[in-house]
């Protein structure tokens, strides 16, 4: 038996707090009450376990202790406000009736995920609530990662919890007819958390990287709890994108394009796990946009070079993606793939017709892509003009430096 030290308890907290919390929320029917109960239970463990020994099932002990502590708490509050008396009585009655543990603890974790990602909550509140309640990050950690003031973030979480309570957002995995749409909201939250960690160029890079790792952990948890094809597709997409992390920026924080990345730096283990998931998701024939994007990422990841990439299949996957979710940004990506398959002129033609339709005119990447294709066709003046337009529109430092470098190279080459 390990000695009960603060460090050991901290480790137990890391491992079990989210599970215990998710069950306490179901049993107590209130986020704040459950959080308080969770902390009380761990505090009790810290005083009781060193002398009395660790219980056989620490998780069950924590749940039941938390429950008793919550009822005590309500009884204390009832002395000043009788309205708490009813709640305390109901919880005690349930405790006596012993309706418990037939719901698996894993179901509670899934309930918690669906509740935190409920589309009735504001989008930014979903991210914050999920990171705090499901991933167990502190409000300070989340605030730092999102470069938001802690009180602002705390307020966002308080409002979200109030909405859950006041609007009657249930603590449940949605029924079959709502599941697909709700799963979409969960997947979107995970994807946004990942993107926040992966693509943003401001703030503390280490903390942001943690967000990407958290998102992968969440996607993995979701796949275990609910092995839906799109959940697998999302996990695959995150793994495949993350596999290129070491190669996509230089030590100075400059962006490296896919074609110039050192493929030896790509994480082979993540690539093979991602690719296997893509195959499984595609085989289900119930896949969606995340799986298709992952399939495209897998084709890039498995190729030895840009030239050796299976561009015809990538164009085909973009076609499928456009049928599912029509979007000018996907059309732009498809145009770049077409340029690789059929030549720069063909790609350019597609981008120009996109712009002629009034789409993506103010999007720096459409001009950057045009510039690159003109450059490959050796049309320096057109390339220069397009790089300048892209530079006017770009927001992020590393992308800005990349475009400026390309523009300068034109004059040398």
């Amino acid at each position: 038996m390990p000695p009960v030290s603060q460090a050991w308890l901290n480790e137990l907290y890391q491992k079990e707090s989210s599970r215990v919390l998710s069950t306490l929320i179901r049993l107590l029917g209130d986020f704040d009450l459950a959080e308080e109960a969770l902390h009380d239970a761990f505090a009790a463990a810290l005083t009781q376990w060193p002398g009395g020994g660790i219980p056989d099932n620490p998780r069950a002990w924590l749940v039941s202790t938390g429950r008793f502590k919550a009822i005590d708490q309500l009884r204390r509050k009832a002395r000043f406000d009788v309205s708490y008396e009813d709640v305390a009585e109901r919880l005690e009655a349930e405790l006596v009736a012993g309706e418990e543990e037939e719901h698996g603890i894993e179901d509670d974790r899934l309930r918690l995920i669906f509740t935190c990602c409920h589309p009735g909550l504001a989008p930014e509140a979903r991210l914050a609530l999920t990171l705090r309640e499901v991933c167990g990050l502190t409000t300070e950690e989340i605030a730092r990662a999102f470069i938001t003031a802690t009180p602002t973030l705390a307020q966002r979480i308080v409002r979200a919890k109030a909405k859950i309570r006041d609007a009657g957002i249930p603590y449940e995995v949605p029924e079959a007819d709502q599941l697909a749409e709700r799963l979409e909201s969960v997947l979107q939250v995970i994807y946004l958390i990942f993107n926040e960690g992966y693509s943003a160029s401001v703030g503390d890079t280490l903390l942001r990287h943690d967000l990407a790792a958290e998102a992968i952990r969440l996607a993995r948890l979701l796949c275990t709890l609910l092995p839906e094809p799109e959940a697998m597709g999302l996990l695959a997409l995150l793994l495949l994108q993350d596999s290129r992390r070491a190669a996509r920026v230089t030590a100075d924080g400059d962006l490296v394009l896919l074609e110039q990345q050192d493929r030896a730096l790509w994480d082979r283990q993540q690539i093979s796990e991602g690719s296997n998931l893509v195959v499984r998701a595609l085989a289900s024939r119930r896949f969606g946009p995340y799986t298709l994007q992952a399939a495209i990422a897998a084709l890039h990841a498995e190729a030895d070079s840009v030239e050796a990439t299976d561009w015809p299949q990538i164009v085909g996957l973009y076609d499928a993606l456009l049928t599912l979710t029509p979007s000018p940004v996907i059309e732009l990506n498809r145009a770049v793939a077409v340029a690789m398959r059929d030549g720069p002129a063909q790609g350019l033609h597609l981008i120009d017709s996109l712009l002629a339709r009034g789409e993506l005119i103010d999007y720096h990447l459409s001009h950057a892509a045009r510039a690159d294709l003109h450059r490959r066709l050796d049309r320096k003046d057109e390339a220069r003009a397009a790089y300048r337009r892209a530079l006017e529109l770009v927001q992020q430092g590393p992308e800005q430096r990349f475009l400026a470098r390309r523009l300068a190279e034109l004059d040398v080459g």
Partner: protein
Amino acid sequence: MKYLALVYYDEKLMEQKSQQEWDALNRECIACVEGLSKDGHYITGSPLLPTSAATTVRVRDNRVTVTDGPFAETKEQLAGFYMLEARDLNEAIALAGKIPPARYGSVEVRPARELVETGNQAGGNAAEPVEEETGEAP
């Protein structure tokens, strides 16, 4: 003929009212409902929790989409109301998705609150102060 009276007000201004002012107003509302009922004018109605507790549902291409709160800009006006009995927000969203005008406009789903003489708050239950949001390990 039937009429639906929809009450609009500036929530921020109402939240600034003192508890006494707010209680007095609620008592006036109760008296008003009693008066209307006695005269046979009152069919059904309810005060609502503030917009911070609202959820908006839409149906486009047979897909239900859900967003937080009502629209900030007042381009869409209330066109009628259904009082629904639902187990929770998920059931209410499912019911709201069946209302035909959801295809053209939107249906705002808002929980009703109890009209009591004293003790309720202009900000609903949501107006709790921020506290203990750190959640550190023990």
